């Protein structure tokens, strides 16, 4: 009885804040479809943004696959130079939100004043183009391919490549015939993540696509512009979310199918060596190519942001000033946005961690029901943010009254409040909390809480005495990650912040899109510095823990 009550107490919010809004949006969208008083035939209306979205997604996924996959193979399996630079360069870009990379690329490659274009005297590369969108999103998504590929490569015995060498294969053939053949499912699922990352992105296509000739308009951009129109737009926006939702579903299911089909089983070796293939005479050339790629994709845009933040408007690169920094960081609007982001981000991190831990515990203790609960709670993470935001807007645009036993009543009034944004951030990132908590619980030593039970502790006391201290570091890391993601988030925020209210992401977005790129550069540099500081701190903590 008590167990049933506990389970329902967890299932109720998941039903109310995940299943109900998504279900409501789907019924609304389908009824709009059948009730059809559409401005244009449905096919004409959807085709062009869907095509732009698919192009963006596929192009970015291919770029991320090529760069991330190649980098992973050479950094992990060969004696290439510069590993100390290449590893972080291919690992960290996703820690910085994608619109920041767009800010950097605009400074580098806008057609008139971009540093690269002025330096070369011709418009070498116009970032306001479909290619620009793909370049920025694809390079930002490189870690989504690089990291799973590296993880898969570390399970491969180096003796397998050596056996290929002894059989007559050169270094590149040995890499191609053995590790690449074994890790392609990991690469493919990384590329699928990159596809979704790009297809669901809003900030980068908006910042670069609106000014393109002709303009590139993706599905997420259409949802945004429809919502700006008010109630009439809301109904058309539900329709633009349908293909986004379908793309995500197909990609997720397709990835699962591919990884299962492509899985090759082998006995996990004990203590595999970390020996690598000598590249011989190819070593300097390959190191140069990868080092150059990492510098162009990940170092140059950051340098451009910093330079843009220090440059006088219309001035020479040689006349640098901190005036913008003082002005922007002292501005009350900036201060308000920064504190709102910090506060809401911390709230979201807390919510994700606590609720994620509860879900992980439920998945352990309530059998199939518990696992189903975790699956549903993890669903929004795989959903494009735009779809989730629209579903929440739709479901909570009216106040909802709850009355229990004819007595206790409360009103859920999320419409037009930051509460809705906080809710969206928590819902979207619950999977991070639940997954990290599950993995931490799986690694925790069970004998400690059992010892506490034997000494007479209640289950809760035993949990807090025995298990919690073991999982706390991992939960802390997950909370920090969630904080960083939410405090710099744009896709959900741009649809859900009440008017007259700023968070960091929306403020930078507004500055960049309404003609104040210098201020946007200042805030972007500050953001990158904070992210770098937090990551360094977390890294140092982890190293200390291991030592």
């Amino acid at each position, binding site marked *: 009885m008590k167990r049933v009550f506990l389970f329902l107490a967890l299932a109720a919010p998941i039903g109310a804040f995940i299943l109900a809004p998504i279900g409501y949006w789907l019924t609304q969208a389908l009824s709009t479809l059948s009730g059809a008083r559409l401005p244009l035939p449905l096919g004409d209306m959807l085709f062009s943004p869907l095509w732009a979205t698919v192009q963006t997604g596929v192009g970015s996924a291919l770029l991320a696959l090529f760069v991330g996959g190649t980098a992973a193979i050479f950094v992990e399996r060969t004696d290439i130079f510069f590993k100390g630079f290449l590893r972080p360069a291919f690992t960290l870009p996703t820690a910085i939100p994608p619109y920041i990379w767009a800010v950097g690329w605009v400074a580098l490659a806008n057609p008139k004043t971009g540093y690269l274009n002025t330096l070369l005297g011709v418009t070498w590369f116009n970032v306001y183009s479909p290619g620009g969108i793909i370049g920025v999103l694809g390079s930002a998504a490189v870690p989504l391919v690089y990291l799973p590929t590296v993880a898969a490569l570390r399970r491969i*015995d180096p*003796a*397998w490549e*050596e*056996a*290929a*060498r*002894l*059989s*007559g*294969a*050169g*270094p590149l*053939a*040995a890499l191609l*015939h*053995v590790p690449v*053949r*074994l890790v392609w499912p990991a690469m493919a699922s990384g590329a699928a993540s990159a596809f979704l990352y790009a297809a669901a992105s809003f900030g980068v296509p908006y910042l670069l696509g609106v000014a393109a000739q002709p303009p590139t308009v993706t599905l997420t951009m259409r949802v945004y512009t429809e919502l700006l129109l008010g109630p009439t737009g809301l109904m058309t926006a539900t329709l633009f979310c349908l293909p986004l939702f379908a793309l995500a579903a197909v990609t997720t299911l397709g990835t699962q199918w591919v990884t299962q089909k492509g899985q*090759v*089983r*082998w*006995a996990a*070796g004990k203590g595999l060596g970390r*020996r690598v293939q*000598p590249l*011989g005479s190819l070593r300097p050339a390959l190191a140069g190519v990868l080092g150059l790629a990492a510098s162009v994709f990940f170092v140059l845009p950051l340098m451009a942001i910093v330079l843009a933040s220090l440059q006088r408007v219309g001035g020479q690169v040689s006349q640098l000033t901190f005036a913008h920094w003082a002005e922007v960081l002292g501005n009350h609007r900036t201060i308000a946005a920064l504190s709102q982001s910090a506060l809401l981000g911390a709230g979201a991190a807390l919510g994700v961690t606590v609720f994620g831990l509860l879900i992980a515990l439920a998945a352990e203790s309530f059998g199939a029901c518990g696992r189903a609960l975790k699956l549903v709670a993890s669903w929004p993470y795989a959903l494009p943010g735009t779809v989730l935001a629209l579903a929440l807007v739709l479901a909570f645009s009216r106040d909802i009254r709850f009355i229990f036993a004819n007595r206790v009543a409360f009103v859920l009034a999320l419409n037009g409040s930051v509460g809705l944004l906080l809710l969206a951030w928590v819902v979207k990132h619950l999977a991070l909390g639940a997954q990290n908590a599950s993995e931490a619980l799986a690694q925790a030593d069970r004998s400690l809480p059992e010892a506490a039970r034997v000494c007479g502790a209640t289950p809760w006391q035993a949990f807090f005495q025995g298990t919690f201290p073991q999982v706390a570091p991992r939960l802390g890391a997950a909370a920090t990650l969630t904080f960083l993601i939410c405090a710099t988030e744009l896709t959900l925020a741009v649809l859900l912040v009440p008017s007259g209210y700023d968070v960091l992401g929306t403020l930078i977005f507004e500055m960049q899109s309404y003609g104040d790129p210098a201020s946007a550069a200042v805030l972007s540099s500050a953001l990158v510095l904070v992210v770098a500081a937090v990551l360094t701190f977390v890294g140092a903590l982890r190293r200390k823990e291991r030592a």
Partner: protein
Amino acid sequence: MASVSLEGLEKSYGATPVVKGLSLHIASGEFLALLGPSGCGKTTTLRVIAGLEQAHAGRVSIGGQPVEGDGQYVPPERRQLGMVFQSYAVWPHLTVEENVAYPLRLKKVSRADIAPQVAAALAQVRLTGLGARRPDQLSGGQLQRVALARALVGQPKVLLLDEPLSNLDAALRDELRAELGHLRSQLGLTFIYVTHDQSEALGLADRIAVLNEGLLEQLATPHDIYHSPASPFVARFVGGATLLKGRVDEGQLHADGLTLPLPGDCRRVGSTRSEHVTAAIRSEDVVLGEGSTQLTVLARLFQGSTTEYRLRWGEHFLRAHGPWRDDAHPGRPIAIRVRRLTLF
């Protein structure tokens, strides 16, 4: 078939030297065992011969052709060697046939010629009929045979084996050891066989190179290694001898508080000075129930065809092998005589 020679080979990992100036000549068609304790640099030496590691100094040549040294380095794929790895290294994404066919495919052998050569190699290691299996459907012993077939199919000049039997259980190990011996006599190939197991080396090899901490201790036939060890290390590692340090005085060995009359069969190695000697006594050379020296029986371990005794005096121990004796109760004193020993 080809000879292999190493000259002054040196290899370090970081600041730690692992191979310290190793010189060896392995004749064409010879079966050489590299024998030594774990960590002495056997695998490293084999990997340098294969070209998987580059030496820091020294020369390697295969079949008279220099492949390493003097700024020259021939990569492994062009050395025409076969290698069997300790972990087998059978590729999990290919079937048995595809694994064995791989070296032929790289040699651009035509499809029509690959099938019979693969079938012949599989027959050679008695795997006929298992060609379509995936590696995860094979036992450890079968994986080992696949690795061997793959190493042989390209008709290498030299076959390198790194502890090929160490991951197998005892019965399978005996069986495969016998098969390797048989294969060897059929093939007439140069073998370099790394092992830490003295019985494998003694049973299979034409000559054994005993390595200790990256240095060559002795290079000789199994018979000589066993009967005429060149150093205390070889006597202990290969013969299982007990080492005693002491001095020789008027036909008596005084060592670690024990006095033993020197037997007639006493081998002296090197310019042993009488005041500082190391005596190596093999367990089967200790005769129980005879002689004037009294030791205490610490343990008596029945092993079927023989019995092992641990004998003690003070803080020191002596190993002995012999027939079962009722009177050698643990805790009781017993008389011993040493019928043969080596002085270093």
